[in-house]
């Protein structure tokens, strides 16, 4: 009775491999984390715009965000200390527009709740209508009714560009100083060196400025000149941004860039970088290993010498030197790193193929008349190819760690939001000396996460590769 031919890789059927992999605790954990990683990467690719690299490096895009800002959820742990970023647009305000001659009168009314220890840094007015600035800039007046019913008026303020910050204007400075002088006899509290917006939200007790908690009513009037109904300002072209001290899920860096987006973007980039490097390594090492072991003789000697040499090369210093000298981008670095890292893997493949080649069943195959290529195709490759997966997984962590280190030094392109680059800027801009933990900890954690996922996957694959470790 003939037994049905089972398809076996490295001595196990695919079913056994899958079962062996998943039955171990390590396998389950590895698969779970791996899926998480893949899902997040896909999410990043889907939600972020394809030109995110350019966006990331365009300071204007992030201008409205507070720099060095903590994540906004910090408030949940330490109480309402930091004012979050607030955007008031046509969903939150009441808008009305009317015409008198060729002047458009716009009134906007909204309220803002303030219950934090640290007020907003700045208020930005964004008027996104290009026609508006042709002849005379629009004029804006702001009246703020505070919780204690005192009123602050700021303006008239010309809106000379699309985005105007009110806290640094001379009008705001002098008007707020006046207000403080009248109410608190403390006009000298306000200096003009930085934005005076926070003072909108203070009162003065015993000579010290304290936050004034409550609801603030904002009444804003804008006069637009030389306008007609066809180019009238509509409510979706007008927006107010209160720049807070805390922002987003992961805070911001020195340019106010949203670290949540930056870290997210890092997923597909770092993964791509690591995988690419590992793939090149595996391709080269399989190639070299098989040729070396299979053809033997002078070829083997020659290739082995080259392999030994590559292993002993000081990869990291050379990578640094060349990155500096040639101004390499991250992709150049990836390729170079792969070119100097394939040695160890090639040795392993060579040993494997040697063992197969000198095995007795090969001898019998040769006697039976098998050609070299037949042996290669039917005996060598089926054993080597599955091993390459394992080899790939083992090479990825080293690639990611090395390339992150290079980025951290500020080399190999600091434009892309790789985690190494984020850390580079963190170190450059004193995150350590100022304690910006949200800038320092998450990127490294993510590097570690990705590296560890691959390491654990490799460990889970080991019983499949090494029969000695099977069966407990």
């Amino acid at each position, binding site marked *: 009775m003939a037994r049905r031919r089972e398809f076996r890789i490295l001595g196990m059927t695919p079913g056994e491999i899958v079962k062996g992999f998943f039955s171990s605790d390590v396998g389950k954990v590895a698969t779970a984390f791996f899926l998480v990683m893949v899902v997040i990467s896909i999410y990043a690719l889907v939600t972020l715009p394809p030109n995110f690299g350019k966006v990331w490096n365009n300071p204007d895009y992030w201008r409205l965000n507070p720099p060095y800002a903590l994540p906004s959820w910090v408030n949940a742990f330490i109480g309402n200390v930091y004012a979050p970023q607030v955007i008031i647009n046509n969903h939150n305000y009441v808008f009305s527009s009317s015409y008198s001659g060729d002047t458009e009168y716009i009134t906007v009314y909204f309220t803002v709740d303030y219950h934090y220890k640290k007020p907003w840094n700045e208020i930005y007015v964004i008027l996104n209508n290009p026609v508006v600035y042709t002849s005379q800039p629009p004029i804006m007046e702001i009246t703020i009714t505070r919780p204690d019913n005192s009123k602050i008026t700021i303006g008239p303020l010309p809106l000379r560009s699309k985005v105007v910050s009110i806290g640094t204007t001379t009008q705001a400075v002098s008007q707020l100083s006046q207000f403080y002088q009248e109410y608190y006899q403390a006009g000298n509290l306000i200096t003009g060196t930085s934005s005076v917006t926070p003072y909108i939200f203070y009162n003065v007790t015993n000579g010290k400025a304290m936050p004034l908690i409550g609801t603030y009513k904002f009444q804003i009037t804008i006069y637009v000149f030389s306008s007609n109904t066809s180019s009238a300002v509509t409510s979706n072209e007008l927006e107010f941004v209160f720049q807070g001290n805390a922002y987003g899920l992961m805070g911001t860096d020195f340019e106010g860039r949203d670290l949540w987006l930056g870290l997210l973007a890092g997923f597909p980039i770092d993964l791509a970088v690591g995988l690419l490097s590992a793939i090149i390594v595996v391709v080269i090492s399989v190639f070299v290993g098989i040729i070396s072991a299979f053809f033997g003789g002078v070829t083997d000697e020659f290739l082995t010498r080259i392999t030994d040499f590559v292993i002993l090369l000081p990869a990291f*210093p050379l990578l*640094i030197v060349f990155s500096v000298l040639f101004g390499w981008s991250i992709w150049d670095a990836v390729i170079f790193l792969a070119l100097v890292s394939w040695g160890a893997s090639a040795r392993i493949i060579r040993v494997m193929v040697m063992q197969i080649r000198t095995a007795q069943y090969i001898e019998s195959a040769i006697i039976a008349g098998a050609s070299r290529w037949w042996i290669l195709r039917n005996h060598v490759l089926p054993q080597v190819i599955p091993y390459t997966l394992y080899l790939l997984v083992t090479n990825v962590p080293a690639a990611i760690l090395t390339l992150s*280190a290079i980025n951290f030094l500020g080399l190999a392109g600091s434009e892309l939001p790789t985690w190494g680059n984020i850390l580079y800027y963190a*170190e450059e801009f004193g995150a350590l000396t100022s304690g910006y933990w949200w800038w320092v900890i998450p990127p490294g954690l993510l*590097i*570690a996460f990705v590296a560890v996922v691959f390491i*654990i996957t490799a460990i889970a694959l080991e019983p499949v590769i090494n029969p*000695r470790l099977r069966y407990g």
Partner: protein
Amino acid sequence: MSLSKTLTLRMANLLILLLVVLFMVSYALSGPASKILMQEVQQEARAIVINMMRSGHVNATQVQVIYNNIVNQLSKAYGLDQPPLIRTFYIMYNMLIFNWGYSYFPQEYGIAGGKVVDIIMSAFPGTILLDTFGILLSAFIGIEIGLKSALRYGSQFDRTIMYYAALSNGIPQWWLGIVMLLVFSFYLSVIRSPIQFPTGGILSPNYYAMWLVNPIKVFTIPQAIVDLLWHLTLPLITVLVINIGGWAYFARTVVLNISQEDFVTFAKIKGLPENQVVNRYILRPAAPTILTSIFITLPFIIFGGFLVTEMVFRWWGLGYVYNIAIVQSPTPDMPVVVALTYASTLLYIIIVFLMEILYIILDPRLRER
């Protein structure tokens, strides 16, 4: 092939490697990079000249002359006026006879005189203290743990160690250093804890100069030793946390493989007690593999992530010097870079060679053919 012949062949191999590496770095710094170097030289000259103009002491023509002078001098220094190959061999020759010359930017290192040899020697003890000692300590502790783990295969202890090893291998060492500084240096000082750790450096300023010139003297002063240890704590802990795991995993694998050998089973059948089985039948056969990998790692540490770790802690070692020479200098400090690469590779091949001899001593099977 006889023993001595094998060893001679290996030695020849390693020497060729040294020459090739030296060639690569020298050529890179003098050959294809010449255009870029020229640009950087011009940039540097321009920056110096602009500074001088700001100070207002020189007029336009003087500025032009000075600019040309600087460009010429730097070009000569880089050998940009000669064909690349000649430059390369000239550099290599000087390296080999240990004529390492002077650094281009001596002020970055704080060593009087700026001789490359001095700079490297001043950083050498720091590297030994942190990197070498750190790796050795990690290896000893890690191997102990790995051995225990292998002997208790499948237990909770074993699995914890495996997870720890996987985790520690994936964490960037330099990042952990940053986190350590954040927590134990920054936050401790913020909450005004009585015990704080320094933000970096190898010693406090009052002993620093002494260390650079005559480190041995530092060891004679008790307060200086305490200061050194205080500075050493955070970096050393970082190194240990990251590296112990890897060694534990490695030792565990080696021991597990050997435990499955027939002679180990037979030792048990002979009624030998557990500690004898472990010592004579597991550790002794494992010794060559384990010892050689300790030896192999030693030279690599300058080449690897320790470079960045030293930088993070501003620890005055070869890695930090390397970093200054390549990355932080306005243009690459070629004498230092080449000399360091050469010295490290030389050290490496010496250690590899010693290791081959050691292997032969430990494994009788290799002794004769």
